[in-house]
């Protein structure tokens, strides 16, 4: 209690005019100053290319709240439905078109409602689909129906078809002829990947087309391997000869001409015999030396920032 009243200030006073924050001396709205200007930050936890969601990626602070979303949108009951019907509660009557009657005794009705954006002073109509109960299967796709709210009829049904305002006469005729009431749409939902339709041509090309399609899918699977270098990957290991290494580094360089006979150096730079391999002990030592060199370096020796800056 104390803490609640602690923060309530007469909001019309300037900061320096505040005396006591427990009471409003002459009345007025007791408001709690919620601190709106706090620097909310977004903590990035994922790499730019690896976000654990498929569709929507989330890289910034998101605005939370339903009614408080900006630009503010609000339900707008002053639409066609409320012009026609006197509704006991919002959404008890709706007018919509029947889209889909594939469920028995259920008509899917697409009805519109209004949303108002006070900032832009404009209204937008949104569409939503409802399951409506029609007992005697009277509805045909494309009917204009009046649906009403009722008791819960099934898990998703709380409307029933109150009347058919405008029957789809053509659809009924089509049904009588044994056709579908409405021809099915040519395309489904949009997909992100290219769908290969096979067997459009003669029967001979089919196998090749199928192979091509599968090849495409395999190529698609290769994206999990990451970027591939242009050159084939050959590892530069100790067993690689100098010529191999040279070839890896500069594949297009002209062939090294062999030294004339008798001029081969008897020793390498550090005084070892050229022909002999290193012993295991030496090998270990070299390894250790290398590791020491690369791993025990202090950062400032690794990267000399000062000299980096000074360089022209």
């Amino acid at each position: 209690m104390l803490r609640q009243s602690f923060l309530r200030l007469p909001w019309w006073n300037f900061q320096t005019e505040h005396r006591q924050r427990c009471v409003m001396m002459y009345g007025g709205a007791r408001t709690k100053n919620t601190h709106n200007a706090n620097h909310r930050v977004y903590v990035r936890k994922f790499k730019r290319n690896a976000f654990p969601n498929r569709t929507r990626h989330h890289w910034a602070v998101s605005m939370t709240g339903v009614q408080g979303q900006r630009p503010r949108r609000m339900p707008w009951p002053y639409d066609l439905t409320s012009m026609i019907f006197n509704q006991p509660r919002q959404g008890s009557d709706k007018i919509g078109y029947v889209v889909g009657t594939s469920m028995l005794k259920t008509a899917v009705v697409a009805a519109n409602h209004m949303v108002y954006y006070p900032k832009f002073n404009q209204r937008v109509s949104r569409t939503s689909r409802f399951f409506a109960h029609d007992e005697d299967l009277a509805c045909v796709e494309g009917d204009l129906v009046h649906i009403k709210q009722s008791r819960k009829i099934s898990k998703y049904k709380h409307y029933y078809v109150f009347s058919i305002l405008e029957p789809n006469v053509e659809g009924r005729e089509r049904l009588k002829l044994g056709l579908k009431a409405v021809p099915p749409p040519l395309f489904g939902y949009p997909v992100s990947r290219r769908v290969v339709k096979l067997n459009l041509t003669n029967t001979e090309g089919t196998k090749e087309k199928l192979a091509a399609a599968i090849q495409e899918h395999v190529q698609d699977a290769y994206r999990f391997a990451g970027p591939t270098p242009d050159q084939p990957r050959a590892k530069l290991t100790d067993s690689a000869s100098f010529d191999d290494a040279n070839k890896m580094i500069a594949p297009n360089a002209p062939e090294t001409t062999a030294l004339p006979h008798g001029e081969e150096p008897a020793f390498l730079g550090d005084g070892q015999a050229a022909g002999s391999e290193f012993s295991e002990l030496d090998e270990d030592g070299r390894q250790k030396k290398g590791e020491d060199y690369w791993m025990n370096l202090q950062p400032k020796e690794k990267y000399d920032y000062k000299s980096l800056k000074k360089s022209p």
Partner: protein
Amino acid sequence: MLLRRSRLLSGRSERGLYFPINHRIVDQRNAPQAGTEEADIQSRYRRQLRTSFITGETRQTEAPAWSQRVRPTHFLSLPLPARCTLRVRVKEMHDAMIFSDQHVRPLLIPTAKLHVTLGVMSVDNGAGAAAESQEGSKRVAVTNGRSPADLLASIQDCVDQATRDICKEPLQLRFRGLGVFGHGRVLFSRCISEAHFSTLDNLVRRIRRDVGLGLGVDMKGNPHDSYVPHVTVAKIRPSQRTEFGRQVPMSIWINHQHHDFGDATFNKIDLCAMSGQGKDGYYSVVSSTDI
């Protein structure tokens, strides 16, 4: 083990809502506290909640009690034209019914007798008037002035007049689906409200009003009300009740419940008598009107 678990998962308890909505039934006909404390009342309520669409039950205009006691004698009908899909399909349906169940054969209406019933009336002749009850006698008093033949002639005049006024062209009607009158006693093929159905309905209303109110004939049912035109396909007569029970079993016609019986064009309205044989198996036609 895996199999058993999967069966468990797909079992009845887990395959839908925990308390399915179609099981949520409160019976208000019970006493208010009965279900909670005194007794648990169990019933298969969904059977009572089946709608007329499921059972095929159709509400025909209901005759008052005094009228129900009098047997109807005449009816208005649209005779089926020769070569009509309706007759062929009804025949097919009869065959299918007989194939599935031999016993129903006496219930079926012979194909020659098929007609669209537009209204039923009892026009009393001498024998009928004696059998009538007290309430009926008042009715008789209205019509007493005329003999039945006169009455039939004036009914025919009414029908002529109404037909001339309302029907300008032959009636095209559509028949689809089966329905049932009198708790499943009479099985009929529905005339659906497409094509010229509304014309027919106007005609029937007009005739009922003229005949029932104007002439004071006992049309069964309220003369201000309309009549459901139908093609009776099978029925249980009172004499057959002991053998076949009260209703035509649903199982024999359920396959044809929404069967399409096709379109038919009618160009005649008959006033038929129920008793007596006419030519080639049809009812004896008292008089007929061309549309």
